[in-house]
């Protein structure tokens, strides 16, 4: 136990043990796409058996694919922006939850709890219908299109979750770190910014990435409020094809596939980081 730093059972504080971490890029396997492709092809094959003069299912899907992918890029855009806004606001709230000022602490706590325990869809509706269609900032009229409102609506629960991630990470540090910094006459602010938060970053990264993956998958909720993202476009494409029932399964399977391809690597990387940080202090 020569290298043990702290007497603790927290995995992150355990002694240093080098871990084999393979090169991430080379280790992502795409075998997982096989069953999904099979699903698309399979459903289209069954659909095609009822022979018809109309275009085959696969050809129809191929025709709509560029539009659907464009829609998905919109989902990614919404998720990245909602994550950025939510992280910024959540960081402020999380640090507010640790404040010694009672008013700041309790109001940060209240906001965090309120938005963390609210259904995302309700928050989305809330943002859609309560935000104005344009805002006046110092005389400049800034329009707020639907997708911006949706982004704000989705940023709210992200904010609350980031706030809790920060609070949890800070509280997970051994109290000795605070005491050592206090004994060296660091102010509370210095202790937080120089000693505590830098040590928390590594702990916060995996749950933060996990939250991002969940947010990305939740962006399809924006279709309910009419934002032209991938789900809305899929619905419109299907309607344009006259509501052919044979197209339903392949089209939605395709949407599932895009999300899987995007989110699975994030989940894998998160798990890798979690494993890495669980042994290296």
């Amino acid at each position, binding site marked *: 136990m020569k290298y043990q730093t702290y007497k603790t059972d927290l995995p992150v504080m355990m002694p240093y043990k080098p871990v084999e971490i393979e090169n991430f890029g080379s280790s992502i396997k795409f075998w997982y796409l096989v069953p999904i492709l099979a699903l698309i092809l399979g459903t289209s094959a069954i659909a095609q058996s009822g022979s018809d003069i109309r275009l085959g299912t696969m050809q129809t899907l191929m025709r709509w694919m560029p539009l659907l992918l464009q829609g998905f890029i919109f989902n990614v855009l919404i998720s990245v922006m909602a994550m950025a806004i939510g992280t910024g606001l959540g960081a402020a709230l999380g640090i507010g939850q640790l404040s010694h000022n009672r008013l700041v602490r309790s109001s940060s706590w209240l906001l965090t709890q309120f938005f963390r325990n609210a259904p995302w869809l309700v928050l989305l509706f809330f943002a859609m219908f309560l935000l104005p269609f344009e805002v006046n900032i110092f005389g400049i009229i800034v329009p707020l299109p639907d997708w911006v409102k949706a982004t704000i609506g989705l940023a709210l629960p992200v904010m609350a979750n980031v706030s809790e991630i920060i609070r949890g990470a800070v509280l997970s540090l051994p109290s000795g770190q605070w005491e050592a910094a206090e004994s*060296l*006459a660091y102010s509370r602010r210095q202790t937080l910014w120089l000693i505590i938060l830098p040590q928390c970053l590594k702990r916060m990264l995996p749950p933060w990435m996990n939250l991002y993956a969940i947010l990305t998958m939740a962006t399809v909720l924006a279709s309910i409020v009419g934002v032209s993202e991938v789900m809305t476009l899929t619905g419109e494409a299907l309607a344009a094809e006259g509501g052919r029932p044979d197209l339903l399964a392949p089209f939605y399977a395709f949407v599932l596939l895009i999300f899987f391809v995007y989110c699975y690597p994030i989940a894998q990387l998160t798990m890798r980081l979690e494993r890495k940080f669980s042994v290296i202090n």
Partner: protein
Amino acid sequence: MSWNDSEPMVSIKDVYKSFGTLEVLKGVSLDVMKGEVICIIGPSGSGKSTLIRCINGLNDVQAGSILVEGQEVNDPELDKLELRKKVGMVFQQYNLFPHKTALENVMMAPIRVLKHDKEIAKKAAVDLLRKVGLEDKEKAYPGEMSGGQQQRVAIARSLAMNPDVILFDEVTAALDPETVNEVLLTIKRLAEDGMTCILVTHEMGFAREVSDRVAFFHEGKIEEINQAENLFGSPKSKYLKKFLSKVKT
């Protein structure tokens, strides 16, 4: 009010402290003069660590007074940061900052807290690491050092603030036996240099060798206090006799 070094540097008077219903300190008084080395011994849970944590304000007290260089520690008006610049502390678990190298651990507080020039602080930190025998560990992170080495960095870190008194809270209790001596030797050199030290320790041989006086704690009170030779050589209290018969001296 001005303080001069003919008065006690740390003056503890009739201090009471409890955690909830558990009374930990029941009327403790102790004066420590400048340059004096005081060891506090006694069974676990007798309040030794709590007392020294009260001296730099990590714990507050319910009654009594603690003066450090004539300033009341429990005065709500007191600037605790100013107090802590004068009172250094070394912990059982070292509590080094794991994301900083040994050198950064030592030089960070002088730069950030005392606003010393970076180059001067760095030079001082290099000298301090040499003083504790770790000149080759400047760039090592705490996780890469043994417990004894980490504890010596922690002592250097505390010294970098140029404190008037240093509190040592069972600093060898978490160490492997073979690294205990290097830490004790470091403290002994400090004591010989005239640093005022208050140590809570279970190392009886060390206490006997290095202390000017030794205080024996029993159930939240100082049961007996005397010169090291007398306290160990001819203990008066029956609790102390019992305690000493149980531990190796």
